[in-house]
């Protein structure tokens, strides 16, 4: 929400920024894929079929089943249902 001139906020430059940035990027994406696997499945289902897409789709389906089995993905669906009920926005 803020807009900062990058050069105005010079702080001491920590070492290992690249490693940390990579962990943040992939850690975040991995956690999102595990907790909201249905969105990955839907995204892949919308793509044109090819061997890569089909393999990725099968992988995403396995992830979705595992997540569902562990009860992780249902938390998202419940939270979404509560939000829709409170906000009154159109259901998906």
């Amino acid at each position: 929400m803020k807009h900062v001139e990058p050069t105005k906020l010079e702080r001491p430059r920590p070492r290992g920024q690249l490693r940390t940035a990579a962990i943040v990027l992939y850690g975040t994406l991995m956690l999102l894929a595990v907790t909201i696997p249905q969105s990955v499945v839907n995204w892949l289902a919308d793509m044109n079929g090819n061997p890569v897409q089909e393999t990725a789709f099968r992988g995403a389906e396995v992830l979705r089943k595992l997540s569902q089995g562990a009860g992780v993905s249902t938390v998202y669906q419940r939270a979404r249902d509560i939000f829709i009920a409170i906000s009154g926005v159109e259901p998906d």
Partner: protein
Amino acid sequence: MLFPTIGFAVFFAVVFPVTWLLNAHNTWKKVFLVAASYYFYAAWRPEFTLLLLVSSVFNYGAAFAIDHFKDRAQRLTVLWLAVAANLGLLGYFKYYNFFAASLMNAFAAIGMKVDIGFIEVALPIAISFLTFHALSYIIDVYRRVIKPTTSLLDIMFYIGFFPHLIAGPIVRANKFLAQTIGPRDPANIRLGQSVFLILGGLFKKVIIANYLSTGFVDGVFRDPTANSSLDLIFGMYGYALEIYCDFSAYTDIAIGIANLLGYEFPQNFNYPYRATSVQDFWRRWHMSLSSWLRDYLYIPLGGSKFGTLATYRNIMITMALGGLWHGASWAFLIWGCLHGSALVIERMLGITGDHADAKRGTLATAVGWLVTTQFVCLAWVFFRAPSTDAWLGYFATMFSGRSWSTSVTPFVAVIFVLGALSHILPPRWFETLEKRYDEAPLAMKVLVPFVVIYLISVAAPAGIAPFIYFQF
């Protein structure tokens, strides 16, 4: 390919490591980033990548031609030809039908039937942005701010770099080309700042701009005369928040992404609705465009060097063309002229300069803020209304005081408040958050973006609308 989508997340998950793996091999890194940028652009219409390539090759050659001549008049002639070619391309795609229709209407008004004909061609996305990047390069070469680069790859990279390609910020050639010379230092990654720019941008776009648009503003502007006066007032303020949250979201995410890849972009917004004069507003809103217009249009026209009347004329020309830059319609021209007129009036009243607020005192500053905000929000109606009839109907109904009922739902009201908070919360709060984030343990650094994006996903609308500035 929109920023807040899984497609872009996957794209960036590939681009990020490859960019840094190639960092020691700068040329190969640039080849990769150009290829990635063209792929990014091709996601809309593959054929328009040709336009990107032609623009890059042409301006690469034009810069050498300008630099080749020692005589100023010859240099200027080549510059004019190159500027005309760039603007000709922009004009063909973006303004031909507008001028053809305007001309035919003008002839019709005097009883003559003239058929110039229209062209049926899709407007290449972001053509205005890539044209301004190209012009920045050749004009800077003409002014000898920079030498023409011998590397076509660098020009392709400068014009096509995907974070700024579609909707800015407009990066100056001399600032960007200096960053392409060698490998980038990963220590320049400001992780906290980039993460919060990206998260803030996602929140502003996905939640605030989208729900304001679909939940209220679109409906109000679709048929203004069917709404109450109060709803039209809310619609006007709603659109002001929507366009800020939409456009600043894009450039915030662009700045954050570019920094994660080791590149620096200029600031584009600085709490624009805190402005206490229209001049102040243009120092805070789309700063990379307003400074571009100042340096490449207003100053070459003569700026404020040739007397009061010439200054007013130059302001009006700059703002009128700035309005037209956004799109081919009379509404954009009127919007630009309104801002130009306001800037002229402020000059007449002496409300200008870097320390205008200090000279004015608290009460006058507060009045300045109030008047500026109302003016800016009223002017946005021209920007948003789809036709002349629409904005005429909008203002007629809004000022008629016909009805004071409202269709704003409690949820939309909450979105309004969240949008307003983007300007109310003190900047130092965000700076503290970033500092805390930078000092936090690694697990927390991962958890924060995960939790924020998770919550945004929970509350996100089913589909994400394209960013408003994509059409420009």
